[in-house]
């Protein structure tokens, strides 16, 4: 069940980066804005596979060099953690765009009202912006979750033991390729269908209190 753990972890990191990135893009200074634009454009234009390879090798190498420069021991970075971080970084770029769009969709008056009440930016984020943008962001974020579960398969190529890689190993030892791939496909499909049910529940919950068909 490594696949699900990676997907959940990467998705969580992705959303955190997304929230930060969206705020940076909307309210940050010109330099922050340009840098974030560069980040989202680059990550979304380069294939995930290439990014995973680049970040996987470059990331572990950089951390080790940094540790050596500080006079520490080299550490062996856990494949699971590296996978989560790399996929989270990729997801973050997509989440940034989704959340930015969702925040822009909030009626401006709500944010102005919050400011007029004298809320601090953090309080406003927690009480107004995040809950108000949720209904607009959920379709995009749901898509991202489904992409995250499927992107875990890509980690098979860097030799990480998740569902797809395990399947191939099992299939090649037993020579029953057809059966094993069919079973793995069914598992992925079940994750997707199950997620769809949960997502529609969450969407209903996030839309509570909104006039139907108002968006």
């Amino acid at each position, binding site marked *: 069940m490594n696949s699900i753990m990676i997907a959940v972890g990467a998705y969580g990191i992705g959303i955190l980066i997304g929230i930060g990135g969206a705020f940076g893009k909307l309210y940050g200074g010109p330099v922050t804005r*340009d840098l974030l634009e560069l980040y989202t454009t680059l990550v979304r234009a380069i*294939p995930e596979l290439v990014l995973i390879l680049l970040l996987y090798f470059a990331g572990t190498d950089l951390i080790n060099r940094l540790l050596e420069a500080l006079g520490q021991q080299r550490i062996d970075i856990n494949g699971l953690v590296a996978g989560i971080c790399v996929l989270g970084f990729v997801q973050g770029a997509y989440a940034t765009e989704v959340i930015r769009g969702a925040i822009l969709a909030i009626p401006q008056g709500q944010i102005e009202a919050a400011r007029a009440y004298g809320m601090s930016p953090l309080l406003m984020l927690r009480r107004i912006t995040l809950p108000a943008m949720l209904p607009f962001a959920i379709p995009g974020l749901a898509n991202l979750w489904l992409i995250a579960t499927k992107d875990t*398969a890509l980690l098979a190529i860097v030799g990480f033991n998740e569902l797809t890689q395990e*399947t191939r190993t099992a299939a090649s030892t037993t020579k029953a390729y057809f059966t094993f*791939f069919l079973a793995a496909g069914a598992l992925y*499909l079940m994750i997707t269908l199950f997620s769809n049910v949960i997502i529609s529940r969450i969407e209903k919950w996030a839309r509570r209190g909104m006039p139907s068909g108002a968006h």
Partner: protein
Amino acid sequence: MGAARHAVGGALMSGSAISGLVDRSARASLWLQPHRIVLMLIGVGLVVSAAVFMRWDWIPNYYGLALQGIWRTLWILAVTVVLGFLLAIPIGLVQVTGPRWLAWLAYSFCTVIRGTPLLLQLWFLYYGLGSLFPQFPWIRESWLWPYLRQAWPYAVLSLTISYAAYEGEVMRGAFAGVARGQLEAARAFGMSRWKVFRRIWLPQAVYRALPTLTGETVLQLKATPLVATITVVDIYAVASKVRQETFIVYEPLLLLALIYLCITGILVFAFRKLEARIPNRLG
């Protein structure tokens, strides 16, 4: 930089005076703000230092192979996008007007393909089906066998299926989104059903689907390196080969990323040109 700032001020003044007359050079100087110039200088510095300090001496040896790889990537992309789009039209259409069982079939096809990773589908077709075929003598004797033994038919097949499923979903929305009145008007003109489809329904649906089509095609480009895992030599496979043979870790990957960036840029630009040619007044 002083000139740039002056131009910014000029642009603002002319903007307040006659808002429609922000000319081209002023817009360029608005875009070229001081911090952007600094960022660009840093970027150029990074590129130059990468070109000077990193190892690029392997490029002449692999030049031909790399060009072949790019060609193969583009070829696979073009073939699968065209075939996938042709498949997506009926998939979308039967979900809107087709009989119940056909609509259900198309819907479950889309769900299954979109619910499983492309890598798994690719390996399923190549290793799974590929391992089943040799068991049947009549397949081995048929004219298809020379093709079935190679990797690329599986790559093209699985990428086509995947594109068809994603795009079929888009086309379903596009077909459903064409205004009913237009189709009724066409019927009232006495057009046959086929003619209505050809002249009214399909063109309007394609117009609607075009913006998403750009995104889907870029996603498809980003899916092509997966075919390297089943021994099709595309540009990604060439980069991996370079890394394995020369033990250079980063440079081939960076160049690979740059190549994909360029292809994406060209694709987006081409689709934007195409979109600009389409009339905006849609019903």
